[in-house]
């Protein structure tokens, strides 16, 4: 969990302005650092912004197809981060995170189709796509958490509710809401792309600007969540995950907190859903199926439940891999994923990224130790 070998200790740098810059660099990142996240040193952030820089120039070196596909991976990363908060940090085993994604997507679709003429219509649709899943899940959360439902039973109820959405949406082949045809199993198509034309500036999202928007949101969500989990709320989330009753005995209203977390996670899942539907112009009820519902759970499990970074990386790589396997035209991609999955659970129970982190820490500690006396056990 903990890895606080800050790289700040070195002093005597001859270039003062440079060391000053480095200090500012560390200072800026300090608010995102803490024992609840992976990557709390200068090297990590240097790599992080390095990758970010590569991603910034990425659209200039690839074609539209690759760019579009990458945009969708970023959206999946946001979804994975939302489950990482709800399940990984707060311990609420939510089988319905994909349902929040689907709800957000459907809400955006319906509103955007109806308000397609209106200036700022899609922005309003985005807001509704975020708020609706939050409200629905707040209601479900209230129902569950105030009724003392917990653990496995939360998983079962969220799964059952997800499947009910699936069942009901499949039946909407003739249902219209305003101009929007829900379309039953065939799904809803013709959903307009997000248009950021509010007051100050206005542009239609091209694949490139869409890529930048989603990239910016992904980075913002990641940093925002890092900030959150290393703050007051972060400790409380972990406290709830580890021992609900204990935490309650300290005076925390865990019913309220869990409902709030559940709902906030849903808002984030909804945001991802909105972005996805804006990206694809299409959504269908398979989003609420058993297989889809388990996808975010796979990402978070493989990447590491207690880490935002791990969940995000796993989402990206697993979606990428299944995409490529899909293009190779084999029926074996599910078998591959299933085996990967079991191996991770057996050999890296806390996830691949934390396991790699531990290796790295062990390696760098021994290296330091052999050089000088180790500073501070961490």
């Amino acid at each position: 969990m903990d890895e606080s070998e800050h790289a700040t200790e070195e002093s005597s740098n001859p270039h003062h302005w440079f060391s000053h810059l480095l200090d500012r660099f560390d200072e800026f990142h300090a608010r995102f650092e803490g024992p609840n996240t992976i990557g709390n040193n200068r090297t990590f952030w240097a790599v992080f912004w390095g990758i970010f820089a590569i991603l910034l120039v990425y659209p200039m070196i690839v074609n539209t197809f690759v760019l579009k596909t990458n945009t969708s991976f970023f959206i999946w990363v946001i979804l994975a981060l939302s489950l990482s908060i709800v399940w990984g940090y707060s311990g609420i085993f939510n089988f319905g995170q994909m349902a929040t994604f689907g709800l957000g997507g459907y809400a955006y679709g319906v509103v955007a189709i109806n308000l397609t003429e209106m200036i700022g219509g899609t922005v309003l649709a985005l807001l509704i796509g975020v708020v609706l899943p939050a409200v629905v899940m707040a209601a479900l959360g209230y129902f569950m958490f105030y009724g003392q439902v917990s653990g496995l039973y939360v998983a079962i109820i969220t799964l059952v509710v997800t499947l009910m959405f699936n069942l009901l949406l499949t039946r909407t082949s003739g249902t219209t809401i305003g101009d929007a045809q829900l379309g039953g199993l065939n799904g809803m198509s013709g959903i307009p792309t997000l248009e950021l034309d509010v007051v100050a500036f206005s542009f239609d999202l091209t694949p490139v600007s869409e890529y930048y928007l989603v990239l910016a949101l992904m980075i913002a969500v990641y940093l925002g969540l890092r900030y959150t989990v290393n703050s007051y709320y972060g400790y409380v989330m972990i406290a709830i995950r580890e021992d609900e009753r204990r935490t309650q005995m300290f005076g925390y209203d865990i019913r309220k907190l869990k409902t709030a977390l559940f709902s906030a996670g849903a808002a984030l899942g909804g945001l991802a859903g909105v972005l996805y539907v804006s990206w694809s112009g299409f959504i269908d009820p398979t989003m609420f199926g058993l297989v889809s519902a388990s996808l975010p759970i796979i990402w978070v499990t493989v990447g590491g439940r207690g880490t935002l970074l791990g969940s995000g990386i796993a989402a990206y790589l697993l979606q990428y891999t299944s995409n490529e396997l899909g293009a190779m035209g084999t029926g074996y991609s599910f078998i591959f994923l299933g085996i990967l999955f079991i191996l991770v659970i057996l050999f890296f129970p806390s996830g691949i990224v934390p396991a790699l982190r531990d290796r790295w820490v062990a390696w760098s500690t021994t290296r330091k130790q052999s050089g000088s006396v180790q500073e501070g056990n961490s």
Partner: protein
Amino acid sequence: MRSKQGTNDGPKTNEALLSASGLTKRFGGLTAVNDVDFRLPKGQIRCLIGPNGAGKSTFLKLLTGFHTPTDGTIYYKGEDITSSHPHIRAKSGISFKFQKLSTYQDLTVEQNLRIPTQLYTDGDQLDEHIDELLELVELTDKRSMPVTNLSHGEQQWLEIAMTMGVEPELLLLDEPTAGMTIDETEKTAGLVRDLIDEDVTVLIVEHDINFVRGISDMVTVMHNGQIFAEGSVEEIVTHEGVKKIYLGKSVEGD
């Protein structure tokens, strides 16, 4: 630490901080707590003893709101709290230490202390308060360690500090010395005694009669879900009936 108001009711007054009447808890066919009437005056340190299965732990859990009673009423500071939620009771000053060690294993020592204290102390005084608590349990130099690196005794003390973090007026301790060495037990006794200075009322479930003798004013004996006897330590130790119910029974665990 928060200064306690109403210093005029010093320790050992007769005003009950906590009382229960007709308190009953059934689990299916089993009656764990049976029609208990109980008074705990403000400022007292009370030990609750009794043989295995006497209902002591259940009784404590009823007081914290962990279990809802089948029947009966609980008053705290004159208010009926029978149906109030555990976190409400915690906020009104009832703090509970589980028998089972329940520090947060994924957090550091300092973060463990932060969880309870940050609800009750203003942001600018928080760090100071945490320092005080760390000092109290002598864990200052281990503040940024993961809890998993602590010994069992240290974790127990940390947890006592955590229960102190909520600024309790009533502290419920469920077997705080369970699994401790003799030295550790002594240190724990010292810690609990210090609480008197903090003007905290304490109810302890405990087996170790030496431990009880060292800290307690009054002892309540439970048996078969009911209050069997009540009195000073000396009275209880010499009580014929109490001897009888302990006879042939294990004095371990509840």
